[in-house]
């Protein structure tokens, strides 16, 4: 059935469409670098979406919980064995994603008789300074996007993840203009919340929507925060401790939110 190349391409296209539809309702995650670290944030989820992977590496993910769990376990296993046999400094997010996760996700996606990974992940590795922070977004087909400066794009100290491409692009456009990497934690928190709100509005509005008005973002944010909790975690830049990941409670964040 799949012997013909055309059929294979068709099967892959169908599969892509199916996965995109499955991921579409996934609530956004924003990761923004600031002076003292990297903040991961999402709002209102019952299932945990932000995870510690290794000393300096964190992950946020949307998708099927079973697939997220398998990928998360694989990432932790790889990082832990590398850190154990060599040292924590030898654990590199770039290698973890490029050489280990991405090829596996790609082949699962393209082997049309097997099940693909229904997951989209955002990884970050905190550096000594904001311009050494690394963000990698990994798609279900193994595709990788970085925050690094390429010919088409200036380097940026943030990355986002959302259910749809449009939602993600609106969030990115917002952070690109509204956010400075050397910001304080408070500024990072509020920028991440605004970015989340913009992504969330876009998901709810469905097709064809642009950047919402400032007032609309603010209103949406307030409505959501009135009923939902914030899930957040930081990777701290402070080099005095080995383990940089720390999850933040909703209550310790509320007082820092601009009302």
């Amino acid at each position: 059935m799949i012997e013909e190349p055309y059929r294979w391409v068709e099967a892959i296209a169908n599969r892509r469409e199916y996965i995109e539809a499955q991921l579409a309702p996934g609530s956004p995650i924003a990761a923004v670098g600031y002076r003292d670290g990297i903040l991961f944030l999402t709002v209102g989820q019952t299932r945990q979406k932000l995870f510690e992977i290794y000393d300096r590496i964190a992950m946020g993910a949307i998708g099927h919980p079973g697939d997220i769990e398998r990928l998360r376990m694989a990432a932790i296993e790889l990082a832990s064995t590398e850190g154990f046999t060599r040292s924590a400094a030898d654990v590199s997010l770039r290698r973890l994603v490029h050489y280990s996760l991405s090829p596996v996700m790609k082949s699962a996606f393209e082997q049309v008789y097997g099940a693909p990974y229904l997951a989209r992940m955002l990884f970050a590795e905190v550096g000594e300074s904001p311009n050494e922070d690394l963000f990698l977004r990994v798609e279900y087909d193994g595709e990788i996007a970085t925050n690094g400066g390429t010919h088409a794009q200036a380097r940026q100290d943030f990355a986002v993840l959302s259910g749809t491409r449009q939602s993600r692009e609106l969030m990115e456009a917002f952070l690109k203009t509204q956010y400075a990497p050397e910001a304080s934690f408070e500024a990072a928190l509020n920028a991440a919340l605004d970015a989340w709100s913009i992504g969330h509005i876009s998901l709810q509005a469905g097709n064809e929507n642009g950047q919402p008005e400032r007032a609309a973002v603010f209103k949406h944010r307030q409505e959501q925060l009135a009923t939902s909790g914030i899930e957040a975690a930081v990777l701290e830049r402070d080099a005095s401790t080995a383990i940089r990941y720390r999850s933040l409670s909703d209550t310790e964040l509320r007082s820092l939110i601009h009302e």
Partner: protein
Amino acid sequence: MERSSVAFDQNFSGAADFPALLRRKGLLASAVIPPLPQAGTPQKTWQPTEATTILAFKFSGGVLVAGDRRATAGNTVVYDRADKVLEIDRHSIMAIAGVPATAWEMARVLEHSFQYFRRTQLQEMSVDGKVRALSKLLRDNFGFVIQGIGVVVPIFATYDSHPKPEARLYFYDAMGAQFEAADYAATGSGYPAVRGILYYENNWGRKTLHELSEKEAVSVALRALDTAAESDTATGGVDRSGKIYPVIKIVSREGITTLPESKIAAVFKETVA
């Protein structure tokens, strides 16, 4: 992190066990227990504890853990600045007497085990789980002990926040049996002297060990190690000419504090020397 290593493991039964993961990847050798010696062949004997002295006791500010700095091989001093009091996580210390190569590797496995558990299971390992994890490592190492090449006898000190917040102290034998100490623990070749002193202090000293202030506790620890070194050549005690002091760490609710050498030196000068 070679490519082949991501044959994702579907078997989740041992997912939280880091040593099991290492073994699966061929990164942790299990000690083989040699066959029992046949009648007539001379039986190899092993010393139950190897050179060093480490001690720990509970005082008013938590648990104090101290260790001398000497590493020996037979009657040779190999190193005079060895650190045998190792931080495993924010609230746990493993102090080691025994073969350094095995002990340090064990500490490394333990440290990674606790982190691996927290990351995969999304919760901190319980104190009982941690105590048991070390016990299991010792048990797995027993083949080397029988062969006479890898004896490790550790002390484990930690702070338990559940259900009742308190400092906890354990000592082990080389087979992995764990014993919870109410007041104090000591192992290593200088152990008899130290145990005598701690027993004496706790029962007939001006205060029990539990009531000691930090300064008094440091003083007791230094005196005990100095006494051990007096009769045991494998214990460094305090090197007066080289100004090498024991490593002293304190476990409390706030975490682990390493006492700076200047502070130890001051107490030593005032109450010991």
